[in-house]
C-alpha cells in the first residue's frame, strides 16, 4: 500500500500493522487514537511496553512467561509435580487454568510441529521436556496441544518419544462443544466423542 500520510504518522501505522491480528484499517484507527490522546497517556503505554519486555522472560523450567527465574506455577509448592500438562503456547496455560480442574505443572513447547512451514521438533522445547521427565519424577504427561493437524502431529511425535520412558501419556479428549447442536458436529469430532463416551 502506498504511504499516504506524513513520515512519522505512516511509520506509526506501519509499526502497528505489524502486530498480530491488526490489519491496515485497525492500525490506522489505533494510530489516530494515539495521536489524539494526551502525551502522558502515550508515554505510560510506551513505558509499560518497554518495562514488560525488560522484566518478562521465560521460566527456565517450563518456558511459561516469568518475571524471575521461575514462573508462578513452578514456584507454587501446592502444585502436583508428578503430572505435567504440555501446551503449545503460554496463553494455553491460561485457558487450562480457567477450568480449575488441573493442579499439576506445565510445559510450554513454544510452538507446534508444522511440516509445511518447515517447523520441526528440534525447534520446540522437546529436549527440555524429556530432561524434566527424567529429573522431576513426572509420571504422567498430558498432551494438551491444539486439536488441529499441527497439534496432532506434535502430540503423536511426543507420544512416540515418551513410550519407552514408561510413564502415562494422555491426550485431551475431543468432544462436542457444550451448548452446541449434535447435528452440526463434524465427523471427526463426533467420531472421537463417540469413542470417548462415558458410562453414566
Amino acid at each position, binding site marked *: 500500500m502506498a504511504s499516504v500520510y506524513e513520515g512519522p504518522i505512516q511509520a506509526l501505522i506501519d509499526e502497528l500493522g505489524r502486530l498480530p*491480528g491488526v*490489519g491496515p484499517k485497525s492500525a490506522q484507527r489505533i494510530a489516530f487514537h494515539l495521536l489524539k490522546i494526551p502525551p502522558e497517556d502515550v508515554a505510560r503505554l510506551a513505558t509499560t511496553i518497554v518495562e514488560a519486555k525488560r522484566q518478562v522472560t521465560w521460566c527456565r523450567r517450563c518456558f511459561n512467561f516469568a518475571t524471575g527465574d521461575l514462573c508462578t506455577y513452578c514456584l507454587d509448592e501446592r502444585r502436583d509435580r508428578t503430572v505435567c500438562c504440555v501446551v503449545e503456547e503460554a496463553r494455553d496455560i491460561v485457558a487450562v487454568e480457567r477450568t480449575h480442574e488441573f493442579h499439576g505443572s506445565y510445559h510450554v513447547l513454544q510452538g507446534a*510441529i508444522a*511440516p*509445511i*512451514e*518447515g517447523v*520441526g*521438533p528440534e525447534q520446540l522445547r522437546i529436549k527440555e521436556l524429556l530432561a524434566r521427565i527424567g529429573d522431576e519424577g513426572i509420571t504422567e504427561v498430558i498432551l494438551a496441544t491444539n*486439536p*488441529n*493437524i499441527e497439534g*496432532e*502431529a506434535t502430540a*503423536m*511425535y511426543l507420544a*512416540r518419544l515418551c513410550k519407552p520412558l514408561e510413564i502415562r501419556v494422555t491426550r485431551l479428549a475431543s468432544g462436542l*462443544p457444550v*451448548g*452446541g447442536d449434535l447435528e*452440526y*458436529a*463434524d*465427523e*471427526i*469430532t463426533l*467420531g472421537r466423542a463417540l469413542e470417548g463416551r462415558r458410562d453414566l
Partner: protein
Amino acid sequence: MPTAAPGSARGQRLYRDRGVVLRSIKLGEADRIVTLMSEGHGKVRAVAKGIRKTGSKFGGRLEPATHVAFQCHRGRELDVVTQVETIDAHRALREHYGCLTHAVSMLEAVDQVALEREPDPALYRMLERALRTLAEQPSPAVSTAFFWKLLSLEGFHPVVDQCTRCGGPAPFRAWDLRAGGVCCGACVLGGRPMAPGTAETIARIVGGGLAGVLADPPDDRVLGEVERLAVASLEFHSERRLKSASLR
C-alpha cells in the same frame, strides 16, 4: 466429470465444487485461509470465517487432507467459504505420525504445482485417490509413487528404460536430475549414484504397478532411495524445497 462453475459466466458469484484441503493458515483472531485442490476450479484459496471458534459451523471439516464438498462466494483476491460437507475425513491419516507427515508432503507438493483457478481434475483425482490409499495402506511407497506420478502428470515422465545420455541399455548406475532419468555405467559422471533396484522400482511405480509395489515392497533402502530421488526431482522442477519431506 469436473463440475463447471455453474453460472459463473453469467456473473453469479456463488459456486460449488469438491476438493481436498491442502493447507490452512491463521488469519486475524478467529479466521483461517484455506487452500483447496478442487475438481473444477483448480487451486482455490478461501477464507473460512470464525473457524477457530469452538462453536464454528465448519468444525474440523476444513483441516488439511479432508475431502469435502464446498460452496464458496467468489471474491476479488480470496473467496469466502459459505458451506462445507465432509466426503471423507481420512481419519486414519491423522492417527499416526508417519501417515500424517507423508500425507502432508503430498498436500505440499500439490500446493506447489497446482495453479489457482486453473482446473486440473486429473491432479485432484490423483491426490484424492492417493490419500485414500495411504489411509488404507500406511506405507511410504504411497507418497513416493504419488510424487513420481505427479512429475509424470506435470510433463516430466521419468526415463527408466534407456540411458538418458547415450540411449544404451541396463544396467543403470546413476540418475540425472536434469534429464529426468537413468544413466548407464559408461555415462554415470555427474549423475546421482543409485542403489541396484532403484530404477526398476521407479519403472514399476510409473508403469501403474503401485498395488504390486505395495503388496511386495522392495527393501527399505531401495524405497528410501526412490523417495529421495522423487523429492529431489520435484524440487528440481518446481525450484522450491519440499519442506515437509525433511520431517520423517
